[in-house]
Each structure stands twice: as C-alpha cells, then as structure tokens.
C-alpha cells in the first residue's frame, strides 16, 4: 500500500493532529493509531515528530493536556481548545481551497471544491 509522502505529511501534521482531537480527547500513541486507522495505513505519523508537534500546539494554546489514569498507566490526554477549533476550521478551509487549486492544475475533476 503506498504511503503518504513524509514531507507532505510533516507540513500538515498539526492539522492532522487537531482533526483527530476534534473528535475527542486522546493521547499520543492512540492518535498515531487513529491516523493510521482512518487512512487504511497510508498515513503514518513519524513517532519522533508526534510529541514535538503536540507540544508546539500546546504551547500555542491550540490544544490542552491533562494526565489521566487509563489501562493501568498514566497518560497525557490532549483536547482541542476553542482557539484550536477555530484554527482547525481555518485550516480546513485553506486546505479545501488548496486541494481545489491543485486539482485544477493537475486536471483532476473528480473533486470539485463543493465535494470536499
């Protein structure tokens, strides 16, 4: 199965993380598993890129972390903040616009902006 280009993913990693957290609080390893599950294994987040990205988002107030006991282990759960939710919407809109532009350039007509 072809994997998503690492550089392409790294540039959009914050968006991926926020999108997953928009469905509810989660912790680092579960986020990676969820990203792989949603894309049928095509999107694999590099493990050494995950925590720097999460910490950066936390520093910017996009997500907030708290410790919880789960499965006999203490885990740091992250949730999307209102500021992060707003930012995610902005990124979604920007991505749709970009994808539509790329599709136009590449001659892909299957995905019109309205479909995305």
């Amino acid at each position, binding site marked *: 199965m072809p994997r998503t280009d690492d550089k392409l993913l790294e540039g959009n990693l914050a968006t991926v993380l926020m999108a997953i957290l928009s469905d509810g609080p989660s912790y680092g390893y579960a986020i990676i598993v969820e990203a792989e599950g949603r894309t049928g294994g095509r999107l694999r987040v590099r493990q050494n890129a995950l925590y*720097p990205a999460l*910490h950066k988002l936390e*520093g910017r107030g996009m997500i907030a972390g708290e410790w919880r006991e789960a499965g006999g282990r203490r885990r740091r759960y992250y949730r999307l903040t209102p500021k992060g939710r707003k930012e995610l919407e902005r990124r979604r809109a920007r991505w749709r616009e970009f994808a539509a532009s790329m599709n136009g350039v590449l001659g892909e007509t299957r995905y019109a902006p309205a479909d995305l």
Partner: protein
Amino acid sequence: MHPPISEYLAGVRRGLRCPLERRPEVMEELCGHLLDRADALMGQGLSHAEARRQALREMGPGWFLALRLSLANGWSPLVPLFRQIWAMGLGFQVLVAAVMVSERAPEVQFMPVREACAYGVLLAALLTFGFAMGRIVRSWAWAITLIFALIMPFTRESQGIEALPLSAMIAVFVGSVLGSRRESPSLARPAWAAGGAVMLWWLGSDESARGLLVSLPDAVVGWAIVASPWLLWLSARGLEQLGRRRLAGPAE
C-alpha cells in the same frame, strides 16, 4: 525497570532543553508511548526484548528527539552559546578579581584568624559561584578554570601559580563539577550573589578605583569589559522569552 528504554530516555533527558518542571512530564509521556508501542509489537508476535528495541528504533536517535522537543518548547540554539560565552567571561572576571583580592591581602594588617576567615569567605563564594556556572552551562563550566589557568601565567610578573589563586581555581572547578550534576534553578541566585560580591570587593579596591573610576577612557573600557558578559546573558534571556512568546502568540 526497562533497561533499553530507560537508557534511551536518560539520553533524551540529557539533551532536552525546556523548563525544569516540565521535564519529568515529557519523560513520563515518552516512556508511556514506548511501552504502548512495545506492547502493540508484542501483540504482533515479537519477543519482549525485540519489541522494545523495535519501539526505540521507530522513535529514532534520542539526541534528535531531544533537539526537536527542545525547539518545540521555545528553545533556541543561540541561548546555550550566549550562556557559555557569558559564563566563561564572567568566570574569568571573577577569578581575576579573586586573585587581585588575594594579592592585596598580605598588605592588609589582619589578625591571622580574621585573615583566615576572609579567605574562607572568598573560597566559599567562589565554590558557590562555580556551582551555579556548572548548573547553567553544564560540562562547559570547567573551561572557565582551564582558560584562566592558561592565561594567568602571562598576566603575572612572577611565573607560576601561587597557593591562593590555585585554591581559587580549584574552588570554582569543584563547584562547577558538583553543579553540573544537579538541577535546581533556585541555586543559581545565591551563586550570582556570591560572584557579584567578589566583583564588588575588587571594584572597591584602590587598584580598580584608579583604573576604572579616575581616568574616563579607562573607565569606559573597563566597565565595557565588565558589562559585556552580562549583555550576552541578557541576550540569552531575551531569546528565551521571545521563543515562549512566539509559541504563545496567535497562529499564522
């Protein structure tokens, strides 16, 4: 506990540059992640030891992870550079001051006990100062004494190292070695005060008064030399604050 994982995490911790109170949390989070991943790999049929090794391989080199985490937490590579130059410059100044104080001491008519007490206080101040330098710049702290040892023979008319300057160097060296093994930001403050006290002692002496306060050009040059390390320290502090403010600022 989990030998390969604990060794890996110790390496990450050594390279991590973020507020001290945050480090245990970062380490616990990484440890939990590695154990989760190892459990998942064991579920796929790998042995206990192989699963842990594979989890570490996937995480990549510890130094690289530490660097990325440090940058994500607002750290800048210029901060340690400025701090190391600052520490070496300031350490050099403090040691020079200590030597000048010690050279003056024989002329002062102290009672032997008072003289011994004065030396004791000076050495304690240098030990504390070295401790803070060791904590702030870690393994580089010893370079302060090394540079001083190399330069000192050229700054003195009489060749060789006398007993008190040597003991001053040893005090700073021992303090910096001890300090490099501890992590406590609160210890830096009394040590800066100790370094400052030695500097003030020297600045209050007749020799420095002639050099720094009477002649204006000498005063400008002298005070610029005294102030230059602190400009580097302020730059490092400024960069740290800027990094944190950029993180906390509005998204692009």
